[in-house]
């Protein structure tokens, strides 16, 4: 089967709005957390999120939004976007430039786009309320395509004139890992030569605060302590939004265009917990099987994995589930890959997380380091025996495993290999 490579990256994240500033933040363990103004109210216990700097998307009217001037976006393009559509659009522009793609490389039947986002709760609410108050005749004709799950693929496919495969993925926090995984297959099965994977989340009040209902948000009020996966005092995840785009290309396209890929996306595996709608299996059974399936599919042995970018979101149960799964895949066989959760710096990007963190992984393979998991004061004893990095190690991993898990007990494991 043809091999698949990552050749372009674009980021709009809480820790940077381009690859180089993201790499610097990861290496130097600079987090992207701030006290979020809409949360500074007595009845909202959660105070901190991973904020997107340089963009303002608070308004329900896209024409009110502000964003870095290097992105020129026409009204007819921005009018149907959710905030995360803007983030991902900007990330797409970066990824296209990074991969050195010509216009003809983007818009052709051999190039597709898969996307993942949770839709835009802010815009859904706004348009729905308007419909109920003023009647359907006064609703924006673009309200639906701007707000429902799928808004990201609708908008990007139209804006960039994508002619190949296009689809959206919805498996909550595993969504964009699934998008990447199936995009890999689209190329390895010979259906497409190139795939864009776009992921985004609004990361605003309406996207994050509903998680307070399940008591899963961190109530930490100090941005410097907020997200602390694997720490014994962790108290929930810190929400974030943003956008990430990755470019995947076949071996032949990489050779034809003469570009240097970040790394190979070697393959992937998945499995489900079959346990609970929202709680991960305490033993991480689905995650364990997903990792084993990924190793099997790629014929990579557990011993070859140097670094694991964990799903670990900083929730009480989830981190331990994954730690147990990692122990059974690696620790019990005597392997000690370096492990960290970059969510300690960015916060949890929900549907965005898998693609954003795979993008980080590709970046750090090229840049030659493994980022430490920030904000660990006291490692949870349940994680003992795992090689959880606290500080950045300036060494380039040859093989990286990226875990993602979502509601319903969906688990995806992606394997990256140095090109």
């Amino acid at each position, binding site marked *: 089967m043809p091999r698949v490579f990552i050749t372009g990256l674009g980021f709009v994240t809480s820790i940077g709005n381009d690859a180089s500033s993201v790499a610097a933040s990861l290496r130097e363990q600079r987090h992207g957390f701030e006290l979020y103004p809409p949360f500074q109210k007595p009845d909202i216990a959660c105070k901190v999120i991973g904020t997107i700097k340089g963009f303002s998307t608070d308004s329900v009217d896209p*024409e009110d939004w502000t964003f870095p001037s290097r992105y020129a976006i026409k*009204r*007819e393009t921005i*009018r149907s976007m959710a905030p995360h559509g803007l983030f991902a659009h900007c990330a797409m522009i970066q990824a296209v430039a990074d991969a050195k793609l010509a216009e003809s490389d983007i818009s052709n039947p051999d190039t597709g786009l898969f996307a993942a986002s949770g839709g835009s709760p802010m815009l859904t609410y706004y348009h729905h309320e308007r419909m109920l108050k003023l009647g359907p*005749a*006064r*609703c*924006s*004709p*673009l309200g639906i395509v701007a707000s429902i799950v799928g808004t990201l693929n609708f908008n990007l496919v139209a804006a960039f004139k994508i002619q190949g495969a296009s689809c959206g993925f919805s498996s909550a926090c595993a969504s964009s890992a699934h998008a990447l995984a199936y995009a890999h297959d689209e190329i390895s099965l010979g259906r497409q030569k190139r795939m864009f994977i776009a992921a985004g989340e609004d990361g605003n009040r309406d996207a994050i605060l509903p998680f307070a209902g399940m008591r899963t948000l961190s109530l930490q009020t100090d941005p410097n302590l907020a997200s602390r996966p694997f720490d014994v005092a962790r108290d929930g995840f810190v929400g974030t939004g943003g956008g990430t785009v990755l470019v995947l290309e076949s071996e032949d396209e990489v050779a034809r265009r003469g570009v240097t890929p970040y790394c190979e996306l070697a393959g992937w595996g998945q499995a489900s917990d079959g346990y609970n709608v929202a709680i991960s299996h305490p033993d991480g059974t689905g995650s364990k099987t997903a990792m084993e399936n990924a190793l099997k599919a790629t014929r990579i042995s557990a011993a070859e994995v140097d670094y694991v970018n964990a799903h670990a979101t900083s929730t009480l149960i989830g981190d331990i589930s994954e730690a147990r799964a990692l122990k059974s895949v690696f620790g019990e066989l005597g392997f000690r890959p370096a492990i960290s959760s970059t969510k300690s710096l960015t916060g949890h990007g929900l549907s965005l997380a898998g693609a954003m963190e795979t993008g980080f992984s590709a970046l750090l393979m090229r840049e030659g380091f493994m980022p430490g998991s920030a904000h660990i004061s006291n490692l949870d004893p349940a994680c003992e025996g795992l090689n959880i990095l606290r500080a950045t190690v300036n060494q380039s991993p040859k093989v990286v495993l990226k875990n993602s898990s979502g509601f319903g007990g969906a688990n995806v494991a992606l394997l990256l290999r140095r090109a």
Partner: protein
Amino acid sequence: MPDPVQSNPGANKTLTLATKPFAPDDDAALREALKRCSPSTFEAAVQFRKTGNADHMPAVVIGVIERFVEPDLRSKLKDADDDLRLIEDLGIDSLTMMEIVILVEDVLQLTINNDELRNLRTVGDVKTFIDCKIRGLPLPRPTKFLPIEHIGAVMPVQPPFLFLNEASVSSTGANGKYKITGQEFFLQGHFKDNPIMPASIMLEALGQLAVLYLLEGASTEPGKAIGSNTIFFTGCEGVRAHRMCKPGDILTLSIKPKRMKMPLATFEGAIRVGQEKAVIAEDITLTFAYVESAVAPAAVESAGQPAPEVQPSETPPLRVAINA
């Protein structure tokens, strides 16, 4: 049964509509709704909402359209005649049309149904449409775009003496284009080694456009049609030629009916080349007669009965729409 009357929009009598009192809250809402429109659009909307004077309506509609047109195309709207096409010339798609409609509905406080939108192709269509809505009148017939094949099929004049390449006809007037090819037979002698389109031929071209209007755009009584062999030139006044027109020039012609009463129809006409004025005719008058229509010969008048009295000349242009 009265003849339909076409009147000059310039002679429009001010129409005032009963509106709800305009509260300070409304002012704020209106300002917010029109925040991306020009100040004059907002001003016109305020005046319309305060006074109900429909004369402010076109400025509001054009201001709203302008706000939804990409900035690099807005200049087209500035000097636009009513024939400027929404899709082809301004890049407005059907979703943008909906956005325009919703904002206009909001600002002018009216409701527009989807099936009413289908025929709006030009800026003029939109203006007339909104005007009808505001005045509670039936909607006009949409602008018809006539290709050369259609023009050739209906016109009594034929090549080599037909001076229209394409035309559009609405109930309020007609527009056309003619490209001077240089192959016109009379250019061999007009003038020697210096081909210039004769002013008399340009006047003829305007007359032909007026004929096309009578055949395709003018309203007639039920069961009657204007006979294509009954239309002849009777006179013209106030004709001035401003610019020499030569091979390669594209003449943009427009005529508007000023008065129409059997057997006479009077038009004003103009020819431009690009933005330059070429010919102006204040009055072009044609005679015409009715023939029995092939379809639906409903209420037929007894022969010899004189044409009944027509409406007064200050009839607002919306009468045109009613009759259409």
